[in-house]
């Protein structure tokens, strides 16, 4: 069996680790357009902050490829897939035959079509290690940095460069920060917190034109800047697969076994669309844990073991200037709310299920809520009032708790 993996991030690692549980012999070839040992992309903001370094950013240790018998091909960009010949052709003319192929090509930053953007020399995106290094090189003391986008990437970038004596301004189309994961009230708490950390916002504003060092907003505000960061969103890298005739929407469409519409081709991670178990909607959930688990699922099936992953939900853990946010699921239904203006807890429930939650500040034991969302636990089977106030095993039924903690088996074990 020969496995080919296009991409070298979390989904690829998940696949390799799963394949090697079942098949120690088969050849695994990994092709990456980048020139790095597998690293954690979300850590690039921590790199700029000095909280990690390139060595510690490695997602797996130096021996990962050797230990798992992988042939790693760096600077190797796939150009097309010949599905008849089961072969991947690379831009440099090389090709690689496969028995099963995993597409784990991730996503790319969206470049907004704004007049004059081509005149801006100092512009950067912020999703790869090379992006981070380029931005790092461009920052000088007192640089005026304009970040387009107040989402996860834009704000982590802002935090990452905040200790560099730069002045940060952030513009977003939305009227609130982190609009994809926060409701209005929690978003306001975070915005205030960020403003206290010297980040200036222009929300519900659009850049309509750029000059080399100037952004013109739709309300005629002019924002001069030295460095521009484009963080308006990412788009799944689907063209390789789409050009081969595969079914795509915004992302590559996969089933609960990470199979695509083309036989022997699997896909996992940020390049995919899959079912959100908390809402039933099919969507792109570009998150590292999901990427790993989809990669794992693909790897199991590629190596002949039937495996289903149907528990993907949107979920995020993000810290900004010391304030932590954990969210998961879908924000619909009735709400349980606790807030003191600085911390925030909102649980969304309906039809005997927890649909989703937002925690700001006190995030302890958040995973207990995540599990209720992911497992669709019927709420009548636990003390919901208690678990709203204090997430813990106490709210579960005694029998279930005993199973988790293993307590009842003590007698059975013959002690």
């Amino acid at each position, binding site marked *: 069996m020969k496995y080919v993996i296009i991409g070298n991030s979390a989904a690829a690692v998940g696949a390799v680790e799963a394949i090697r549980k079942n098949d120690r012999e088969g050849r695994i070839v990994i092709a990456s357009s980048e020139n790095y040992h597998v690293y954690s992309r*979300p850590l690039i903001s921590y790199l700029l902050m000095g909280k*990690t370094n390139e060595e510690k950013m490695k997602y797996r240790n130096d021996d990962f490829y050797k230990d798992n018998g992988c042939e790693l091909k760096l600077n190797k960009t796939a150009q097309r897939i010949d599905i008849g010949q089961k072969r991947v052709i690379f831009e440099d003319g090389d090709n690689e035959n496969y028995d099963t192929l995993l597409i784990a090509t991730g996503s790319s930053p969206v470049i907004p079509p704004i007049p004059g953007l081509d005149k801006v020399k100092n512009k950067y995106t912020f999703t790869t290690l090379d992006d981070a290094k380029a931005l790092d090189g461009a920052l000088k003391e007192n640089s005026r940095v304009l970040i387009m986008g107040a989402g996860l990437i834009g704000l982590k970038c802002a935090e990452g460069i905040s200790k560099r004596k730069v002045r940060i301004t952030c513009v977003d189309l939305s009227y609130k920060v982190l609009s994809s994961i926060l409701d209005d009230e929690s978003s306001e708490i975070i915005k205030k917190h960020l403003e206290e950390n010297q980040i200036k916002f222009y929300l519900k504003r659009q850049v309509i034109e750029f000059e080399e060092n100037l952004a013109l907003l739709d309300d005629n505000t002019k924002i001069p800047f030295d460095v521009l960061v484009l963080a308006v969103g990412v788009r799944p890298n689907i063209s390789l697969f789409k050009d081969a005739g595969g079914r795509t929407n915004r992302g590559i469409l996969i089933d609960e076994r990470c199979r695509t519409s083309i036989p022997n081709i699997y896909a996992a991670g940020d390049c995919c669309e899959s079912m959100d178990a908390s809402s039933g909607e099919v969507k792109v959930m570009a998150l590292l*844990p999901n990427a790993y688990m989809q990669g*794992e699922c693909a790897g199991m099936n590629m190596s002949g073991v039937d495996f289903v992953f149907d528990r993907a939900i949107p979920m995020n853990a993000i*810290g900004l200037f010391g304030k932590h946010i954990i969210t998961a699921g879908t924000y619909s239904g009735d709400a349980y709310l606790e807030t003191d203006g600085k911390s925030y807890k909102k649980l969304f429930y309906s039809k005997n299920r927890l649909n989703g939650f937002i925690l700001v500040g006190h*995030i302890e034991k*958040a995973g207990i809520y995540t599990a209720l969302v992911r497992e669709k636990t019927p709420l009548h089977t636990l003390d919901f009032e208690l678990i709203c106030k204090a997430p813990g*095993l106490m709210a579960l039924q005694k029998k279930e708790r005993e199973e988790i*903690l*293993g307590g009842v088996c003590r007698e059975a074990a013959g002690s």
Partner: protein
Amino acid sequence: MKRVYVNEKWCLGCHLCEYYCAFASTNEKDMARALKDKRISPNIRVEELDGISFAVSCRHCREPLCVKGCITGALRKMGGTIVIDRDKCIGCYTCILCCPYGAISPSEDGAVQKCELCIRTGSGTPYCVQGCPNEAIVYEERGE
């Protein structure tokens, strides 16, 4: 492999497991001297309400969601034990988001903390088990 199991029927709610756990990482000989006047931050925590109490620590899951979700690779499985490289951890708390038992906690220094079955202390039997006065916490192999 051997794991820590908890039987709430025998738990006295004395919190000694928490003190023994905190003591385990101090490298001191005397517990009273090591922990006197210190706020402890143990990896095992007692939940209690209305006369029910039990200790909760990492279950060392066979399919650990924390390891699969860890964005840095700091959490990994070593043998069957889930260990954390606290130098690599950047405290994003994705593992806290993922753990269904609430067994991973933030810590003072930014990295997360969790039970590693005392493998770094070389004690063999974990400290919480040694310190439990009523055998409510045991360390044994069960049906694997």
